[in-house]
């Protein structure tokens, strides 16, 4: 990755379009771009999985779409609105249409409010009267698999991780959003609970025709849940395309390395291919040219001087690499 460029965008047909997004963080050691020119888009009803390791900027990207982190450069368009330019009043309206679910379900819920109040928080902000909100809560809770009789009056700390994540999903859906951004929604959960939550999200997506940005580090989870996948590395895009195609035939050496790092017990040694060497570099001081080159098994001189742009390597599959894999 390393790359920038927006050859993979599909223009006005997309409901959400992110072009050359940049997000800057300021630290005592200096400013750096956590997201340094990322582009992707989603059609209505599509699910985009964003994968990558720590520091790749996947969570920051999700937050910037909702303007929870300031947009330093580039453009985010949701339907007819430019998110960077929207007024605070308009942004408040837009955040109803674009909801987010976070990794840590318990800490994302107000600890002093009962479950029935938490799920209706969005409606409360909209000024819906309390009596109406409380009347609607049981319906929302039942949709996320929490019988109201048992759960409505509980406090968040009395819930398990899986139940708390169901409440967070219910709260997001209660305001009837069109776009859902899920940031590592199942990574704090045990496998048996994770499957329940993923199935719930899949059902609700169909029921409400949701468009979903699904951010996760688990490649198996992303594969099972996504139509398209965006692979990020150190604030840049590495690869974008149909998830099945990208997993079956990765074009970027980083995608290849990620997939080869997924444990496959039936293989000799437990993995399908060689390990990627080295560590993820500091975003404060990223390598020149292609940001992945220091760990790339096939890097050439050109990779150090010229940043690769996203280009179509196969129909519908884009990679930012000077030497894409076959």
């Amino acid at each position: 990755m390393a790359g920038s460029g927006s050859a993979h965008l599909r223009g006005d047909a997309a409901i959400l379009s992110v072009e050359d997004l940049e997000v800057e963080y300021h630290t005592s050691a200096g400013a750096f771009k956590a997201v340094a020119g990322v582009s992707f888009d989603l059609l209505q009803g599509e699910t985009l999985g964003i994968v990558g390791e720590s520091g790749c900027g996947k969570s920051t990207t999700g937050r910037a779409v909702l303007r929870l982190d300031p947009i330093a450069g580039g453009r985010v368009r949701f339907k007819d609105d430019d998110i960077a330019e929207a007024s605070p009043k308009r942004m408040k309206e837009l955040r109803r249409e674009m909801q987010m679910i976070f990794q840590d379900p318990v800490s994302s819920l107000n600890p002093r409010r009962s479950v029935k109040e938490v799920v209706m928080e969005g409606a409360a902000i909209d000024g819906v009267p309390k009596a109406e909100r409380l009347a609607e809560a049981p319906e929302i809770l039942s949709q996320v698999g929490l019988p109201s009789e048992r759960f409505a009056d509980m406090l968040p700390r009395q819930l398990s991780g899986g139940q708390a994540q169901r409440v967070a999903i219910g709260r997001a859906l209660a305001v009837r959003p069109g776009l859902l951004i899920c940031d590592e929604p199942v990574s704090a959960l045990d496998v048996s609970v994770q499957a329940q939550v993923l199935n719930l999200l899949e059902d609700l997506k169909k029921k409400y025709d949701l468009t979903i940005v699904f951010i996760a580090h688990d490649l198996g989870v992303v594969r099972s849940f996504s139509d398209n996948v965006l692979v990020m590395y150190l604030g840049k895009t590495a690869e974008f395309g149909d998830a099945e195609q990208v997993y079956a035939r990765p074009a970027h050496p980083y995608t290849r390395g990620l997939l080869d790092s997924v444990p496959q017990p039936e293989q000799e040694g437990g993995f399908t291919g060689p390990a990627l060497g080295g560590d993820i570099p500091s975003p404060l001081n990223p390598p020149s040219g292609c940001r992945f080159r220091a760990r790339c098994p096939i890097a050439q001189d050109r990779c150090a001087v010229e940043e690769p742009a996203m280009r179509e390597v196969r129909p519908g599959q884009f990679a930012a690499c000077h030497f894409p894999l076959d």
Partner: protein
Amino acid sequence: MSEGTLLEVQDLHAYIGSPRGVVQAVDGVSLSLDHGSALGIVGESGSGKSVMARAIMGLMPPRSACTGSVLFKGKELLSMSKKELQGVWGKQIAMVFQDPGRSLNPVVRIERQMTESMRLHLGVSKSEASSRALTLLQEVGVPDPERRLRAFPHELSGGMRQRVMIAVALACEPELLIADEPTTALDVTIQRQVLDLLRRIQTERKMSLMLISHDLHVVAGQTDRVAVMYAGRLGEIGASQEVFKHPQHQYTNALLAATPTIDHERHAPLNVIPGALPSPTDPPAGCRFAARCSAATSNCHSEQPPMAPVGADHSVACFHPVNERVGELVGR
């Protein structure tokens, strides 16, 4: 106890006092580990896998009790005094934990953290310890080891810190390394590097390894044998490939079917394990998985299934092992 056995755990119970009652964290686990081999321990939260490791090490919290037997090279660890255990820790059994950031002292340079235990346990001089520390960092693949010795923990990445922790654990040349979720906090490419490292040092040093993880996929490819725990009990144990490819316990099978793999069919529903863990303070009388099991019958709720062999190196504690109902299964 056979000739090649290094560690033999017999009917281990580890109970911990809590405000809600006595937590039966480990409840009757028996297993053994041979010289030079690798054993995986797999289980989700509340399975008792970490408590078992701590019980073996004699590192149980206050208000806890262990019964049963833990024989290490024929010696009973459970009855050892703290002083006797100090002769075991580091030199015979060493441990690596999940969060390498918290196991290192943040205000002490790497060199002193590595050399202190060597000087204490091995009685070597300061300069001898320093040169050993340098060799160890090289062995675990830390680049630029001279510079890293002078660094503080926060100056290292998570993967580097875990390599340092492994080097510290190796310093006194233990015969058994217990690694409790050593890669859970790491990114997948770094996890891969650390797993490769553990396998390499285990082979090169002819050391035994106990690799504990919540993920059967991580463990099965890296170990000779694997044990699957659920709610304090052992469900299944056997050759890793056998357990992974032909799981016999209904829980192991359900766990594998619930895990999305990188070739899972898109948008296809995952197999779900309904319900939640039983109460750890008041566990059910029969099989602990019975309430969530699709194959459970009335005896599963009243009787504890005994561990019984189902293959050459494969035993399972289940009244309805998977091969009994081939054809009924979906998804796998």
